């Protein structure tokens, strides 16, 4: 029997179920087995002392996922906006065994924390967004993940594709940007097993420290003035990262349609790499923006129904 990556099914309050296409998924159990630390030659006593599955995935359905997961993470549970998450693995029809009516594998999570990982957007390539799902025991009695062997493939599976658009940093447009990455850096508290169980029952968000890294090929964007001050301020009014939505069977959705993504940030603009070059290749530089709370708005603001601005900032 052979399987491949399937999709991520997310149920939100309503209920509203959305199936997101995944580019990859990794779902370690983080099972801990320990012995009794005796001086014996062989291990005599082994027990499972912890079992804390964590799903890590990547998707191109950036708008859908950003709609479900906020900057601070989103809890999964009966009373939370996301009530259930399924990881579906698609079974292959092989020459040895044909597929039945409901052949696929489902791993269901009904308690946990969804948080954003990294948004990567390189020029002329599809942008990707990674996420993490920390699984908890829903009631102290049941395991964090319930596996069902034999489900139908959900339908329809959402397919979205975005690519990097024109960005503005500190009021300066960057038409020569090569790539942008946003590390969301959502740090969580230590997960410990519930008393009398091997599964964690609680997780909390400690800090959210997003960092934007922009890689460009126009070295003149890092000005002497920026170097003299070593850092300058980015605000939501003058710093924007844009993602253009691709059109199936076409190129892009019209720029005037409110379907594109805009992310604004407040932080400090810090030159990281002044020049990175080698023979027979173009030089690049990098700028880093650690983001902060500006007194009113979260460090990153996301608009999922934005028009695409060809002349940012406004």
């Amino acid at each position, binding site marked *: 029997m052979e399987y491949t990556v399937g999709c991520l*099914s997310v*149920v*939100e*309050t*309503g*209920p*509203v*179920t*959305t*199936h997101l296409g995944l580019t990859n998924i990794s779902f370690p159990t983080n099972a801990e087995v320990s012995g009794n630390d005796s001086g014996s030659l062989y291990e005599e006593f082994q027990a499972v002392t912890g079992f804390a599955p964590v799903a890590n995935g990547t998707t191109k359905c950036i708008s859908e996922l*950003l*709609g*479900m*997961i*906020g*900057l*601070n993470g*989103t809890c999964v549970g*009966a*009373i*939370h*906006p996301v009530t259930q998450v399924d990881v579906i693995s698609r079974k292959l029809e092989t020459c040895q065994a044909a597929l039945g*009516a*409901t052949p*696929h594998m*489902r791993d*269901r999570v009904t308690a946990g924390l969804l948080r954003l990982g990294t948004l990567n957007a390189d020029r002329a390539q599809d942008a990707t967004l990674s996420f993490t799902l920390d699984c908890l025991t829903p009631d102290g009695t*049941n395991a964090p993940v*319930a596996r*069902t062997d*034999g*489900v*139908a*493939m*959900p*339908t*329809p599976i959402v397919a979205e594709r975005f690519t990097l658009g024109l960005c503005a940093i500190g009021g300066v447009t960057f038409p020569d940007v090569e790539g942008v990455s946003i590390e969301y850096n959502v740090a969580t508290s230590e997960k410990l097993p519930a008393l009398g169980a091997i599964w964690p029952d609680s997780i909390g968000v400690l800090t*959210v420290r997003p960092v934007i890294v922009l890689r460009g090929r126009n070295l003149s964007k890092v000005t002497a003035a920026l170097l003299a001050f070593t850092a300058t301020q980015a*605000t*939501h*009014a*003058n710093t*924007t990262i844009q993602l253009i939505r691709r059109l199936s069977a076409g190129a892009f959705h019209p720029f005037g349609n*409110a379907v594109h993504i*805009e992310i*604004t940030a407040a932080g400090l603009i810090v030159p990281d790499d002044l020049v990175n070059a080698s023979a027979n290749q173009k030089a690049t530089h990098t700028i880093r923006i650690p983001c902060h709370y500006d007194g*009113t*708005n*979260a460090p990153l*603001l*996301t*608009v*999922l129904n*934005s028009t695409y*601005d060809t002349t*940012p*900032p*406004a």
Partner: protein
Amino acid sequence: MSLKPHKFDTVEARAQRVIVAHGRAPNLLRSLDPDLVVALAGLCDEDGNLVPTALANVESPDEPGTLQQVEVDVREAFRLVLVEHNERQKAVVDDEAPAAVEDETDDTEGEPTSVR
């Protein structure tokens, strides 16, 4: 300086702006009662800027059970709206029958409850 001139001329757009400004998922808007959406929209102006303070009804410390109107900052106002939302969610969940232990044969059909 105002934020980029997005269209914040609907109650929902302004409420969602407030939600995102507090680090919460935009889809949270869908699960809020209409009166809570209106309450959140009042924290955002038509340019997408969050107003610094808002009037909120909170329980009077001197007269428990009665409400008084106080001026709170926007973070506190947002927190109070979410507290009310969470209490309503818990009431809904508590009223429903406890979920049965999952029967693994139920999902051999595999179709989700509803699909967007």
